[in-house]
């Protein structure tokens, strides 16, 4: 079968079903609020959000691969580009760009053009340590782990904390070699 050309993020986003972004925003807000009430410690909330994102990422990668026709990326640079140009666009409808590569090409920044999670949000004094969008970093980490890349994803700039952009730093820790052949009988 001839390889199918990868589709652009815009094309995929246009073809999938949509929901109102405010419902999404407010639902996320409700989740964060619940976590803050339950866990009390801001640090714990950050962890839990990251874990939730990871769970999402692990499952989201399937849909991503099925819909985007993206084939294996040759290097981490291409991977980062695919995440920024197709991944974010496809699910959140926002674009992102990749910058700040380090010398050996294992660490870069993804800067979001828009962020539907943070509409109507302002961090109160008591939650200054909160990484409100920590779920996104978890998603990226989880999804990449499923395609054999161990990464560390952190927020470098966060507008809710007074920075001028939303910037995610993605650092490739190691490529896990795929185990092959799979043991079917186990």
């Amino acid at each position, binding site marked *: 079968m001839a390889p199918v050309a990868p589709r652009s993020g815009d094309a995929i986003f246009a073809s999938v079903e949509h929901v*109102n972004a405010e419902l999404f925003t407010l639902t996320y807000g409700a989740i964060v609020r619940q976590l803050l009430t339950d866990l009390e410690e801001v640090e714990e909330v950050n962890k839990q959000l990251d874990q939730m994102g990871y769970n999402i990422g692990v499952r*989201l990668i399937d849909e991503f691969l099925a819909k985007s026709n993206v084939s294996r990326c040759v290097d981490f640079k291409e991977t980062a580009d695919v995440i920024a140009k197709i991944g974010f666009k496809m699910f959140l409808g926002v674009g992102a760009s990749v910058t700040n590569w380090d010398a050996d090409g294992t660490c870069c920044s993804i800067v979001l053009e828009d962020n539907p999670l943070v509409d109507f*949000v302002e961090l109160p004094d008591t939650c200054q340590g909160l990484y409100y969008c920590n779920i996104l970093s978890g998603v990226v980490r989880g999804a990449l782990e499923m395609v054999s890349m161990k990464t560390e994803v952190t927020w470098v700039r966060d507008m809710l904390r007074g920075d001028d952009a939303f910037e995610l730093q993605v650092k490739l820790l190691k490529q896990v070699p795929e185990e092959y052949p799979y043991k079917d009988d186990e």
Partner: protein
Amino acid sequence: MIGAGKIKQYSNVLDKPLSKGKQEVSSSAFAFLFSELVQYNQTQVDNIAELERRLEDAGYAVGARVLELLCHRDKNGFTCETTFNMFYLDHVSIQEIASLMSSNCNFCCGIFDLLNFEANRETEGKLDCWVSCLLYTAQCGKCYFGKVADSLEKGTEHEDEYMISEKELLVNRFISIPKDMGTFNCGAFVAGIVRGVLDGAGFPAVVTAHFVPMEGQHRPRTTILIKFGEEVLRREARLEHGNFNDLVKAIIATPVDVKYTISFLHSSYDLSHE
């Protein structure tokens, strides 16, 4: 600067202009998020009722904000107070309300059916106050779930019950309930949203979500049952006697700042008893 975001920065979230609410995300993004909400809450409870209550609470928080947003966004000042005034002051006819609403919120014909249905129950040009809140709910449904509910009916057994039914509720689309979880319905979240909206608009109600099996269909539909609080019914009964109208007129005649306080506090309506 390379990599600078395109988002404008505001020192205060209130300075940020209100978006038009037309932005969208993919439905799977929402489904993923919602499933995490449910899974997280599952770890926090030990029975189904508690789980539903927690989901409803989360929904309530959303509903309360939805109402506020819709009110703020409305160009004609279609707020709780104006609805209230519209419905209870004689100088607005049903036709005016209908046209105002259609130009305003693009209501679908289903809602007009409802209006016609309810119009039969009106006395002297005053619409049943339930209609206003149901319209609100339906409007929220359209904005947030992409469509007006499949059906909206009045309960046959009880005067104070209304039902909104959906063949496939957004939140239930990708969810199948394991057998051991019995009657659990993720629609509790939506029920919470509805309750939040109604509560904010001054119509406290108990809202629950139920599965109703449909003949010939594989999946049951979800019905959101709205049961209005006693105080809503009492208010309703008073209104039918007409005394309340005089009070509203008196309120309107008082200076604006005073009027504001009164019209914001829904519980203050209750002061009108004889």
